């Protein structure tokens, strides 16, 4: 229930006008480039691109690999997020900083690091018999590297918001630590975990730099946009970009609607 006084600030005319003016500038700044993109692509360009098998399969691959990367980030990120939310220990600040590192380093740097660490001739790759170079695995690895911080940080915030007594009481009525984690902690943090997954997915799909270095092929849409831009020119790249834009928007809106249910 919204209370009347919730809106007291925005009822002041001067304040409302100032806030709206600044807000409009931000919206315009974000929308104008998109408008240019769509205009240059043109209706025919968009239709033509949607008929291109290469374009469609790259978009599909982006989403596939993105979903896998976001899901892996969430699954493997949750235990770490829980530890960071509940424990205070020496070096916690350093670990938190390390988690955020992928957000600040150039993604080409991240790509080089991944390639060096997990290529098929490296110690880890040869031990496990896998390699990231030019493979779907590489795409997923690069995407996971850049999207994990979102999955971890959102899950952590979710866990932090749960009062410890909610977990403790479950123990006292007979549940062991694992049961409490899966029946109390995870469900209560679910909203944040899902938002984290969405953010990780969004970040994964939009990744270019790391993927290009690790696994140019199989080609994902973000890399294909770059390729078309350099080989086929601005109009073709704009067409693919617009198509990717429409897809991303549809998926995000759809997921949010699902989430709200």
């Amino acid at each position, binding site marked *: 229930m919204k209370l009347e006084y919730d809106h007291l600030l925005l009822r002041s005319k001067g304040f409302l006008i100032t806030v709206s003016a600044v807000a409009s500038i931000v919206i315009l700044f974000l929308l104008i480039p998109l408008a240019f993109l769509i205009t240059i692509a043109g209706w025919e360009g968009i239709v033509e691109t949607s008929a291109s098998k290469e374009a469609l399969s790259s978009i599909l691959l982006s989403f596939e690999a993105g979903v896998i990367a976001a899901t892996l980030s969430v699954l493997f990120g949750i235990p770490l997020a829980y530890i960071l939310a509940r424990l205070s220990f020496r070096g916690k600040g350093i670990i938190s900083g390390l988690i955020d590192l992928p957000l600040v380093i150039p993604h080409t740097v991240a790509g080089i690091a991944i390639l060096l660490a997990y290529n098929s001739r490296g110690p880890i790759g040869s031990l496990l018999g896998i390699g990231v170079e030019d493979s779907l695995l590489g795409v997923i690895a690069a995407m996971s590297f850049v999207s994990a911080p979102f999955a971890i940080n959102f899950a952590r915030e979710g866990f932090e918001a749960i009062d410890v*007594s909610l977990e403790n*009481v479950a123990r*006292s*009525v*007979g*549940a*062991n630590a694992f049961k409490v984690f899966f029946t109390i902690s995870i469900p209560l943090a*679910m909203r944040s975990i899902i938002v984290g997954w969405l953010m990780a997915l969004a970040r994964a799909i939009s990744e270019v730099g790391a993927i290009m270095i690790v696994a140019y092929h199989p080609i994902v849409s973000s890399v294909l946009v770059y390729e078309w831009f350099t080989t086929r020119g601005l109009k073709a790249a704009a067409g693919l970009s617009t198509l990717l834009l429409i897809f991303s928007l549809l998926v995000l809106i759809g997921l949010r609607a699902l989430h709200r249910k």
Partner: protein
Amino acid sequence: MIEIEKLRVRAGSFTLEVEELNVGRGEYMVVMGPNGAGKTVLLETIAGFRRPISGKIVIDGVDVTFKPPEKRAISFVPQNLALWPHMTVFENISYGLKIRGIDKNEVKRKVLEISEIMKIKHLLDRRVTTLSGGEKQKVALARALVISPKAVLLDEPLSNLDKGVAEKLKSFIKEIRREVGFTAIHVTHDPIEAAELGDRVAVMLNGRILQVGEPIEVMRNPKSLEIASLYGGLILLKGKIVEVNNELVKVDINGKRITALSKAGCKKGGKALISLKPEDIGIFTEEPKMTSLRNVLECVIEDIKEKGSLVHLTLTSEGMRLESLITRGSFEHLELRKGKRVFAVFKASAARVISYEP
């Protein structure tokens, strides 16, 4: 049932040190003390949420000092109740049963049974976030009791409720006890609550338990000034009900008759515990007219303490100890001194039956 020995627990800079505390089967033990006395730390240690540095906690003959909470069969009801917001009332109550792998129909039967007793059957499908304070308290209690724990730990269960609701819940807890019969350790800062509910009270101050005994005994014979001050002069009187008349009862206390406000369920012949506050007791030097709404007791002034603009009198009346707070003005006007015979007067409505045993 619950035996605590030489328990030392550290919580931040605070240290809890309990030399000994024993709670019998079916006993309702109230741990009473001011904020920061360490009552919650004690409960959390018994529940298994905190590890002691040293000492022992034995439940039903089994040393549980280092057992995890789920292996103790002790239900903890924290002050914030900790109802799970993502579950319905039914799901909250049934959680402890389901986790034990009990058959679905049996779970349902047990939840219905306890909800019937708790009078919350109509709430079972509700989300806990939509409940009132009193309802939440009952759901938390039902969730704790449904698993038939060896004991229930209650952390200030009445402190967040409106006065009226708290009063009702107090009677309710006693009723439930009669029906289900559980062992409890109940933490409070309120001496009246302790007297009303507790079979015994353990007074706690600065992380130590200083005195354990029947509430009326502890109140009458506090071992130290600190303990006495916790009662703030509260007077507890115990006697036999000789007459019940609508809202009033006449209670015989060592041959003296007192008229007091009744409590639901009071019957002639039963024992009643009556509470009275010193500020409600007036002093007369000549015998005033006695009415059915007024109590008059002839007393002797035992002690006089001056407290700023007020004067605190300790009075005795044939084995009964009373205290009175009067203004300095009336103290001087009445020319009171130690040993003087006076009449203590208080309204029937100032004396309240807080506990009743048939």
